[in-house]
């Protein structure tokens, strides 16, 4: 308990100190609970998510960093490895391949990398995975782009 708090506090200070270090990631800690964090990440360029801003919710366990944080998308996203309804993310480093050397910031980077490089063979969103697996790249991209516009971009007008 004490160890996880101390470590999260270190991460908090690092985020404050290096606010501009990674313009694609904006990590914010809940005012009253250091175990709850939110992140805004920019969709990577040259992907259907470009131009979108996606919100992530972090729930950090008391055993952190020995146990991984739980992360999900709050913003709707059409991606093979993200559950369309719950926003759950299928990413090895959030499960078996977790290492305590990861930080919330680096987890965000890993998620951005996952957005750019989907793994259609372990899909949480089968529709999205099937489009990619059947080779329908254009179909996948247009669906993903549509949801990016609908959910991850500011409404016009």
């Amino acid at each position, binding site marked *: 308990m004490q160890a996880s708090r101390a470590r999260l506090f*270190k991460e908090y200070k690092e985020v404050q100190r290096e606010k501009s*270090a990674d313009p694609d990631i904006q990590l914010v800690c809940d005012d009253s609970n250091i175990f709850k964090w939110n992140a805004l990440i920019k969709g990577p360029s040259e992907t259907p998510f470009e131009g979108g801003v996606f919100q992530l919710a972090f729930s950090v366990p008391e055993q952190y960093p020995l146990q991984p944080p739980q992360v999900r998308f709050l913003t709707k996203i059409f991606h093979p490895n993200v559950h369309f309804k719950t926003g759950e993310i299928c990413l090895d480093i959030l499960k078996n391949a977790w290492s305590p050397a990861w930080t919330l910031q680096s987890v965000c980077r890993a998620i951005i990398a996952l957005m750019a490089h989907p793994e259609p063979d372990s899909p949480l969103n089968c529709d999205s995975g099937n489009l990619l697996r059947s080779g329908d790249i254009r179909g996948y991209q247009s669906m993903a782009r549509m949801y990016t516009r609908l959910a991850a971009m500011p409404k016009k007008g």
Partner: protein
Amino acid sequence: MEHHQSKGDTLSPHPNPNRNPCPICLGPVNDESYLDQCFHKFCYNCILRWTKVAAYKHSAPPTSVKCPLCKTENFSIIHGCDGFSFRRHFIGQDFHKSDFFTKAHKYRLQSYYCETGTLIDVFNPTRYWKLHKYLQPSHWLYDWMRREIQALTQEEDVDIIVHHILGVIESWRRNEQTSSRTSPEAKQERFRILVSEAARCFLTGRTNQFVNELEMFLASGLNMDAYDKVYLKNLGWKIPEINEDEEEPHEHAPVVPNLYLFDEHSDYTE
């Protein structure tokens, strides 16, 4: 992380005092320790805790751990480096389960990490050499040395090492009995060199202290139990957080209470 830090260093006028934090707690490294293959650095307690958590994923206790930074397979954690010796925790090795490693072994191992300088005055090796006591072999030396080397090497079968060192001591004694022209200091010096040479390849950085301990044991003229009692009494006087009695009866009962003093930081902790 490195990328961030190097950037921070160039920006801030004051160098960051914590440039190489432990990757697990992100704080300053406490009880510096290294994985044996990749040599990545962590706090001892941090990497030990991670090793235990990582072990839960396996059905049988693993004998290796992947480095949290580079995923290299590592077999032990090296810590407590003081420039001469270090401690080593082998992954998945649990000394509480092995029969030979008794509490007495633990106390012997721990004594190598404490300031035991005042014991020299108690056992007075100088007198031992002046009065030619070394000509009389100690009956208890074999048992004492066997336990000592078991404790230091954390191996049960150490007979070869013990016989080797005892053989060296024995032939030295035979030489001394025939030719006794040299000064006590020269004899002591010769003895220390011979034993060091015999022991060094097994005990490496702990050799010098082993020779000190050996001299003290011989100088005491005591058997193992009596020696332990005197030894611990003096060690106990030096250590404030001593807890006197709370152990079940044991063959070394009077000495047992001191044995958990350094549990957290010793070689045999799980």
